[in-house]
């Protein structure tokens, strides 16, 4: 128990308290605003044949070539509706900028640190792999996305 609170504390220490949020299916995710570089409409993408399936393609971001990862596929969720164009959330990672393709972009939230908890057991296992913790909001859970794990494709998804 003591170790848990220690882990939680270090998590909190890196938060600014503000989260940029997005939806994938009916999951609600948040990424610390400090880690978000920008938000974009759907961009024209260059496919990468033979790449892992979760990689949607490459986009040109003001001269920078950014890899785009489709979050639906990353979370092993069914594909979004045909006419539904995803949005880009470009996040900063150790290796450079990576774009996450999400269903909808949500608002920027201020959260109460006290509401931070461990991920619940009954959470979808694919999602649980990629998040660090949750915030209990009034009517839903905000899943805190671990961006490093998300862009590290070696992280195995447990069935």
């Amino acid at each position, binding site marked *: 128990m003591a170790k848990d609170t220690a882990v939680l504390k270090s998590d909190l220490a890196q938060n600014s308290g503000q989260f940029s949020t997005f939806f994938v299916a009916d999951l609600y995710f948040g990424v610390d605003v400090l880690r978000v570089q920008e938000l974009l409409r759907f961009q024209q993408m260059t496919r990468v044949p033979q790449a892992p399936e979760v990689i949607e*393609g*490459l986009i*040109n971001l003001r001269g920078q070539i950014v890899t785009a990862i489709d979050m639906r596929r990353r979370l092993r969720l069914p594909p979004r509706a045909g006419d539904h164009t995803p949005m880009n959330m470009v996040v900063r990672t150790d290796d450079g900028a990576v774009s996450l393709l999400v269903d909808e972009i949500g608002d920027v939230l201020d959260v109460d640190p006290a509401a931070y908890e461990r991920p619940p057991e009954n959470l979808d296992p694919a999602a649980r792999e990629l998040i660090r913790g949750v915030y209990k909001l009034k009517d839903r859970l905000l899943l805190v996305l671990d961006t490093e794990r998300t862009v590290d*494709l070696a992280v195995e998804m447990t069935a």
Partner: protein
Amino acid sequence: MQDQDVIREFLVESHENLSSLDRAFVELEKHPKDADLLASIFRTIHTIKGTCGFLAFSTLEKIAHQAENILSQLRGGQRELTLPLVSMIFEAVDAIRKVLASIEASGEEGPDRFEKLTERLRVAAQLTADESCDSPEIQSVPSQPDPDSSVPFQTGPAALPGPLAEPADGHIASELPEGEKPEESVVKSSAVADANIRVGVGLLDKLMDLVGELVLTRNQILQFNAEREDAALNTTSQRLNLITSELQEGVMKTRMQPIGMVWNKLPRVVRDLAVSLGKQIRLDMDGAETELDRTIIEAIKDPLVHLVRNSCGHGIETPEVRVRAGKPPQGRLTLRAYHEGGQVNIEIGDDGAGIDIPRVKQKAIEKGLLRPEHAEKLSDREALNLIFQPGFSTAQTVTNVSGRGVGMDVVKSHIEKIGGVVDVFSRPGQGSTVKIKIPLTLAIIPGLVIASGGERFVIPQVSLLELIRLEAGSSEKHIEYVQGTPVYRRRGSLLPIAYLNQVLGLKPAGQAEAVSIVVLQAEDRQFGLVVDGINDTQEIVVKPLGKQLKGLTVYAGATIMGDGRVALILDVLGIGKRSGVIAEFHEQTRAAAEQKTQSEIDLQRLLLFRAGSFERLAIPLSLVARLEEFPQSAIERASGGQVVQYRNRILPLVPLRSLLEPGAPCPDPAPDPVQVVVLNDGDRSVGMVVDQILDVAEEAVAVRQKSHRAGLLGSAVVGKRVTDFVDLNAVIRLAAENWFQGAGELPNDKRILVAEASAFSRGLIRSGLEMAGYRVIEAADPDEAIRMLEQQPVDAVVASLDLPPGGTSALLAAMRARPEWEAIPVLALAESAEQVRTHGGRPMGFQDCQVKFDREAMLTSLARLASALASAVPEPVCAPVGAEGKR
């Protein structure tokens, strides 16, 4: 609370000082009495000591202080430089480095006080009087330094590189001249600041990026300009173009560093190794001023050091061994660097023992990298390249270089990653040389834009050899299939073909008007890549792919095109390997080995010649009676064809050219004399007119590809070149049409069963029979012969007397046992005329017996047998004819 900047400055300077100390000490060992060296070393340590004291780094100060004492004594001539002394001072230098590293990491000196070391230094400093006499002195280097061997780091300002940047900060000093050393309490920058300045690597990288962006934007402007007719835009964009190119060049130059930067820590490495291994090694460096892009220098640092360590450890022998071998006791390690053809060549050579090829093979077999039966067949070059195989080196040996276990395979992959190649040469007893070739720059390269599967890709121009376009209709003919693999005949050799759509899993193109092939080179292999379309060549900025995509070997990076979209850059070697056209080492040797065993069985001698537009034609030599030459004047016309009088007979001539290419015009002027290949067919002869006799080759022949062209049997690879085989039947038939009327001369649909164990002989017999117009069925032993007989009606059997296992008698017995076969005449073939005579002509129930390779006799006999059968009078055939009888 110290000022961060001051500390950072201190770290950078100290690192530089220590590097120069390393070099200076190695020099000092060779010239222990050099006063200037001693003075400069002393100043360096003194500077370090002073700054440490100022910044209150007490451990550092203590170490430096003691070292300074010793150096002061050396400088003052109060003691001699000894080997243990130098080693101890090196220890001090290393200790100082460790403390500096700790300061860099945490701002503190770290827990280790190095008290033992400091104490030893202090003690050493005290033993002046006794020391100098007893301990072994440093010998000056026995051999005189050659005037032309570059003594490192004394070469003067222009060539002298700055020390290797080690701190995380990575400051590059541009060309600090070592020559003028200002006074002791120096801040280095003052004397040299005017000519050079220090620039952070980060800033240079940023400049490089910006220039890259500028290049892309310039490309876009040029594209717009091309689409418009605006004079003002035109001139401005041309100007922009020029300026951008020059700027690009200039910025790339700033990133260029002399390779000496990497080399300058090598003398220390070599010296330490030599001491610890008890060897004497001299390091010569030539071309330290050769410049490379910074990124390349980073990439080759580790491999170079590893190679040098290898040479010291495994290459150069101990002095005793060398003397015994008649070599000077001091080994020589030579580093060379020079520009050539847009690439940088780096050579690391030693005059040591060379690479022990048998041992390499042994080791490879042990590691499962080589099959024992292939070991014999490897060329020396292939054997040497075994050392680059992954798994070859014992990765257990962790070197001090980088803390990681490194092997030659890692060296190779490091070098290949930056687009270079590495090769090793060796002469046993004399030494070995590793040669590395790397492209000058990575970041901006010319590339060819191609399209495939609806996507655009870029191929680096450096890998591009040629572009080939095959128009529709002809593409069928030109991309051929050899054993299921698509190939293309390119100037006499077969080029393996890969389809980019297939390699990348893209949708294939529909029926296009033309097929585009890009001929590429990777390592030393060439192959053709079929793409949907070829666009133009552009200068592109190479951007690396993110780590999620780094594992894809088919891509070398990505770039942004003129229209702003991203395009992937293909990795030619990756594509080649992925498509299988570049076979792995093992495959090659295995295939070669298999091929060799095959060929041993089925060698045939072939006559090679050329006719018309067919550069290379062949027929089995055994079917050739003679090669003749006739002057044009001897050729006469008769019965609608050409003939020539020959040996009291009339020889009909068949111009092969008109058979293969009917309607083609005759060459003008007609060749004189005319080359004729005389073929015998029973009693008759035919002269086949060719353009030129080329050669006789001995090859295993398996016709690889059937031909649909009249006059050709098919094609196969002979003497490494695709060769067409002439259908002699067609030649004879043509002659017959022209000349021989008369029925029944050509027994066209008689079936002969040839029973003969040796495939080679069987083939010969078969060719002979087929040429005469018979249909041939083959069997290798009596059982098979029986099976064949059961399957189809046979008109006659030609069987070898020594047919194993039961011998021909078994076959005969079986045949006689069946009523339907009883009447089939059997012609026995004996090995020699003796055998024929021994058996008295009709041994054991054969109708006849001839010598195996007397084709004429065989054919004559067969004709007689066959016609005898046809006339349904089973008359016994006449006495045998020996080989001599016929001709």
